[in-house]
């Protein structure tokens, strides 16, 4: 695993990495080092690896090695690594000390051009699996985005700077708009402390730098470098040139020195200062603000009122009336001091009246407070002048309906009707009838009305109490568009959906109305009773809840119409059982199921196998996995004999040929977010497979991960959302980059029919759910775990054969502890000297589940018996999810314990709380949690229930899901079965931990602990 870090240092980005495979080469004995800056930071990654990663972004990148002195919290011998590493930190940090860090330099322009524009999901897809970005890296990416934001909006100015008797021509950032100022403040506030820990050459003071200085240095330096690089085109040819040309040349040259004696620059600098004066003025606490107010009912009296607006808090307005009462030079409004408010607002009205002439009328008064205008003027103000005024740095406030005019402007409503007696059985290929209506926002008008309005030739009309813009160009466009298409016609449903996807040039489609089955289809996921609710399949060995019946019926409804469905219910709502119901429904309908392919992550093959056995014992299941899996014709032959074939995402690509040769009946993708990267080979191969129907299951909310959404939808219903490129242009970029809410609404309208997502808090779900659900989660062992496990079992069996009494008891108990540790994580068993790279099946599973729960906004308790496990989990989860993780164990002081509990219970507090069971058992009230994990087992139902009840106390208003982790085929599973069988068994027998096991005879013990063979080992490097 490699963690990438980034620092701003000497005008460049400095990128370095931490690597968990680097051997420690610091001795931990004797006197601790006094001057640590002579030593290399112990967990450094090689610069070669950094170069490889940077080459992913810029092929031409060649490393420039550099060394930084970085201040890091340090213990007696060791510095801390970033908390992302699994690490048992015995050498507690207590001082700040500099270490030598080797890394590579990356120019500001490479960073800004190649890295900063990427979204986090882009990066996720581009970076190799085991490379993570540290917070400081993400932080500088954000700063880079901020710089791009300024560059795009041309917020910079050429300037001249004097330093050490020399003059330099530079490009400088201009921070003047409230939004930019606010962002800058926030960036300063969220800067990770490590960014402030770079020591300059010759620095002896071990002290964090000022964050604001660092950002300002970055903005100034990087801005100048980049603009220079982008515009460089001049060289000095003549010898004798006037100063201003020298300056201009230095601006557009890699050498920024203005080579002229200082005396001759005086007048130039003076003139320069007076030129940029207006920019400096805008750094004050307030700015002049013009607010357009619409006429009251029945009048045509539009009005612009004058205000001062606080720069740091745009909602704070001082009306002009109040300003005329202040005659002090410096006055205070809302706690903000401001100079010469009267002169400021008057001068600004004077300037603004050059842009918007009607303002000059207000200046005939002694104390202007606003200006009456007519509708034409108001329209000019809205469409042109307000924008110019804003660009000049004035505040402008316009009514909300104007800002939302895209939603309320002129557009069309699309109406879709079934044709004849077609009941939509052809799904997207069904022919539907369509027609149009002109719509003004949410008001529909007939053509006659529309043309009457157009004839008025007024730019703004009030329709049904709402102001609406009748934009000339738009209207002409719409009229010709309507003429072209006529009143309507017929087309396949697929094309109708497509109309909504592609239309950058089309008039805005505000609303789609449906009739008959089309309505049922489009609203099925929103409204009940739009599709027939099927009875529970008789073959199902279990009971479906109401919402599960609805969910499976919906999938059947779409499937029967040849449409791919995505079930995206929250975790814990039982997507598995709903899918099994669908499979059984097929069987009961007499349809052939075989072969249906089910693709899932390796870690849950076992779970699927078990669930299918449990709920659908009548189905035959074949698992295609492991090194000795079938291939070629043999595979084809066997596959046809089974109802369900389970396999994994990684095999999709490796066994692409085998899969492609089968004509599948159906394909199901579980955890479908695995196909998020549309360019990945496995994704392309799964899309190529032939099948009659396709279904995807996922628990992650797709609306925040649009690329994932497209990829899944393109698997389910190829082509429906258009190409990835147009989808990105129309939806991903506006929504993810510019936060375009209207686009997001449009998109939802299109995808709603294909995605059913219920969350636990839905009213139709919550009443159906039990307050507490206990779910067994079966996990696999990794190969390393298997090896260790089998070694311990063999060792124990050998030893107990030749021992008895106390000695035997001790042996059994210690072996059981070892096995439990191995099931948790190899590192727990091996101690800190183990290879940190190793993985555990439980941890892989936990990570997947946390990903979903966190995306759903859930809160989590994780119980473990082992303090070391808890600590590992804490650092690991922090690394993966960038979430604060609380950890309560026996060593935590009462005071800190109370603080933790209090913080966890706060609505915005940390969302993950790890408790070592003994410490977590009593007297805690943690009702904010709605998911409880038992990472390992106590094997005492009473103790476990007590722990679970931390979340499930009086005051708990939500359902709580309890997950018990069990490693398949190990003693964990065996003991769990024993306890389940003997539920009635008195606590006395199993109450005291594992002692009762020591009473087993050798054969019984062997049966209990020996590893069952058919486990599905995790692949190496699974995460």
């Amino acid at each position, binding site marked *: 695993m490699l963690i990438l870090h980034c620092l701003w240092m000497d005008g460049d980005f400095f990128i370095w990495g931490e690597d968990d495979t680097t051997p420690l080469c610091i001795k931990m004995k004797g006197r601790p080092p006094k001057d640590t800056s002579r030593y290399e930071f112990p967990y450094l990654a090689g610069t070669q690896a950094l170069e490889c990663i940077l080459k992913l972004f810029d092929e031409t990148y060649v490393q420039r090695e550099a060394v930084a002195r970085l201040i890091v919290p340090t213990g007696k011998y060791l510095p801390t690594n970033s908390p992302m590493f699994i690490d048992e930190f015995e050498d507690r940090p207590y001082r700040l000390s500099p270490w030598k860090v080797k890394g590579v330099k990356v120019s500001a322009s490479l960073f800004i051009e190649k890295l900063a524009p990427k979204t986090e999901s882009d990066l996720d897809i581009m970076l190799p699996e085991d490379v993570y970005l540290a917070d400081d890296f993400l932080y500088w990416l954000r700063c880079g985005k901020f710089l791009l934001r300024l560059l795009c909006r041309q917020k910079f100015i050429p300037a001249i700077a004097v330093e050490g008797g020399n003059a330099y021509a530079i490009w400088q950032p201009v921070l003047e708009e409230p939004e930019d100022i606010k962002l800058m403040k926030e960036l300063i*506030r969220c800067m990770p402390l490590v960014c402030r820990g770079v020591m300059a050459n010759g620095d002896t003071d071990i002290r964090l730098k000022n964050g604001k200085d660092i950002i300002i240095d970055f903005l100034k330096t990087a801005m100048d470098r980049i603009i220079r690089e982008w515009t460089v085109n001049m060289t000095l040819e003549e010898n004798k040139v006037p100063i201003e040309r020298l300056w201009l040349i230095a601006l557009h040259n890699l050498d920024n020195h203005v080579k002229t004696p200082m005396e001759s620059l005086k007048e130039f600098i003076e003139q320069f200062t007076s030129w940029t004066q207006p920019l400096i003025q805008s750094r004050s606490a307030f700015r002049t603000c013009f607010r357009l107010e619409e006429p009251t009912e029945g009048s045509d009296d539009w009005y612009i009122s004058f205000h001062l607006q606080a720069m740091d808090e745009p909602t704070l307005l001082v009306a002009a009336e109040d300003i005329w009462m202040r005659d002090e030079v410096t006055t205070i409004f809302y706690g903000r001091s401001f100079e010469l408010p009267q002169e400021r607002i008057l*001068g600004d009205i004077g300037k603004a009246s050059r842009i918007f002439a009607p303002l000059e009328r207000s200046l005939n008064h002694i104390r202007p407070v606003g200006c009456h205008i007519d509708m034409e003027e108001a329209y000019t103000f809205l469409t042109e002048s307000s924008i110019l005024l804003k660009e000049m740095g004035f505040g402008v406030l316009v009514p909300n309906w104007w800002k939302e005019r895209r939603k309320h402007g002129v557009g069309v409503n699309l109406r879709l009707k079934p044709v004849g007696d077609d009941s939509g059985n052809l799904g997207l290929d069904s022919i539907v009838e369509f027609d149009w209506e002109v719509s003004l926002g949410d008001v529909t008008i007939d053509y006659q009305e529309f043309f009457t309005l157009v004839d008025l030739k007024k730019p703004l009309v009030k329709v049904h109490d709402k102001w609406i813009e009748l934009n000339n160009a738009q209207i002409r466009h719409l009229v010709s568009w309507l003429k072209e298409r006529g009143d309507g016609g017929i087309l396949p449903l697929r094309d109708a959906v497509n109309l909504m996807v592609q239309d950058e040039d089309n008039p805005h489609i505000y609303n789609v109305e449906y009739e008959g089955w089309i309505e049922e289809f489009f609203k099925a996921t929103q409204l009940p009773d739009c599709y027939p609710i099927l009875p529970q399949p008789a073959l199902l060995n279990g009971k479906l809840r109401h919402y599960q019946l609805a969910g499976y019926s919906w999938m059947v409804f779409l499937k029967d119409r040849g449409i791919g469905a995505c079930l995206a219910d929250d975790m814990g709502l039982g997507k598995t059982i709903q899918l099994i119901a669908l499979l059984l429904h097929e069987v009961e309908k007499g349809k052939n199921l075989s072969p249906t392919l089910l693709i899932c992550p390796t870690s849950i093959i076992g779970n699927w196998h078990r669930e299918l056995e449990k709920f659908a014992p009548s189905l035959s299941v074949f698992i295609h996995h492991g090194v000795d899996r079938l291939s070629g014709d043999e595979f084809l032959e066997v596959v046809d004999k089974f109802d369900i074939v389970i396999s994994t995402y990684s095999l999709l690509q490796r066994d692409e040929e085998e899969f492609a040769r089968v004509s599948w009946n159906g394909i199901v993708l579980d955890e479908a977010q695995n196909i998020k990267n549309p360019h990945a080979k496995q994704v392309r191969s799964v899309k190529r497979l032939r099948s009659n129907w396709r279904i995807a299951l996922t628990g992650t909310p797709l609306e925040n991960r649009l690329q994932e959404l497209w990829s899944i939808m393109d698997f389910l219903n190829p082509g429906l959302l258009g190409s990835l490129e147009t989808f990105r242009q129309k939806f991903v970029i506006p929504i993810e980059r510019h936060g375009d809410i209207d686009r997001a609404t449009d998109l939802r309208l299109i995808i709603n029919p294909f995605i059913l997502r219920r969350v636990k808090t839905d009213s139709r779900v919550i009443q159906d759910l039990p307050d507490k659900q206990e779910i067994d989660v079966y996990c696999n062992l990794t190969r390393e775990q298997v090896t260790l496990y089998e070694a311990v079992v063999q060792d124990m069996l050998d030893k107990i054969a030749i021992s008895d009494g106390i000695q035997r008891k001790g042996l059994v108990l210690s072996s059981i502890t070892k096995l439990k540790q191995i099931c948790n994580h190899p590192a727990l068993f091996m101690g800190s000297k183990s290879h940190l790279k190793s993985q555990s099946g439980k941890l892989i599973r936990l990570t997947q589940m946390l990903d979903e729960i966190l995306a759903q906004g859930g809160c989590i308790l994780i119980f473990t018996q082992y303090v070391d496990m808890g600590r590992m989990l804490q650092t690991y989860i922090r690394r993966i999810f960038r979430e604060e993780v609380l950890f309560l164990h026996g060593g935590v002081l009462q005071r800190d314990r109370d603080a933790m509990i209090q913080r966890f219970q706060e609505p915005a507090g940390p969302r993950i709380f790890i408790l070592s069971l003994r410490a977590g058992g009593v007297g805690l009230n943690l009702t904010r949690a709605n998911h409880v994990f038992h990472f390992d087992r106590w094997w005492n139902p009473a103790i476990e229930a007590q722990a679970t009840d931390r979340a499930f106390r009086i005051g708990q208003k939500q359902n709580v899901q309890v997950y018990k982790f069990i490693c398949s085929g190990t003693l964990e599973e065996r003991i769990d079965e024993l306890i389940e069988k003997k539920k009635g068994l008195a606590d006395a027998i199993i109450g005291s931990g594992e002692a009762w096991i020591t009473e087993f005879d050798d054969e019984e013990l062997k049966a209990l602990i020996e590893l069952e063979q058919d486990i599905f080992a995790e692949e190496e490097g699974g995460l």
Partner: protein
Amino acid sequence: MTRQVRYRFGTTWWGRRWIESLESFGWGSRLTRGRNYIKDMDILSVDISPGLVKVRVVGNEGIPYNVKIGLAMFRDEIWEKILDSMASKALYTAKLLAGEMPEEIEAVFDKEGLSLFPTDINDIYASCSCPDLVSPCRHMASIYYILASRLDREPLLLFELRGIGKEELMAGLRERRTVPSSNRDLDSDAKIVEPEKEMEYDVRYIMERYWDMQYYNLVHIDIETPIINESILKRLGAPPFLQGKGDMIRQIKSSYKRVRLRALNVVSDDS
């Protein structure tokens, strides 16, 4: 040494009016040669006080001279009256502060039988330390034009030359404009908002949070496209030091454009 600064003057109606006034005094070629002399002269310092401008210049002969130019100042009582009329409409203050001489200003002075611009040769006093005995000498003459150029940018300078400084003028107008009021609602209880200081953390906090981003999800940076291109340049207008140098202004504009296009390209590049 090269002469670097080139002036343009009379770009505004009031700058032109200043020149017209001077040209009406019958100085003929003595005045116009100042125009040509500007390029052979360097200005070492300018000092402006009510009614008087003192300029130190050095011409191509390399000897520095002191030039003084004064205008007849109006008496305080007159200014009181002028201010009274000017305060009756916000227009005067607004335009002047926006760097514009309101055209209506002449009527204000007319009413008192006066003129803001010099109308008579006696309105002007000028001297120069050069050996040339004729007035205006070429130094004075060129300063007249330089003043025109300055007036284009700072119309308030003319008020100053007539005896009332910018601050005094503005304060006088403000006094007449302000409505007395006891209403101080807006700040009665508000505490002064101090600029945010960098937080000082204790060592334990630093140890625990050293590698973490704070308030991670609060900052969201949207990248927008500009509605108006090169808006800062448009707002500031052409730099005074580049007046008359179209090619250089074009160069700066084209750099702005290149940066915008390149940045937008970087942002929308999906490769």
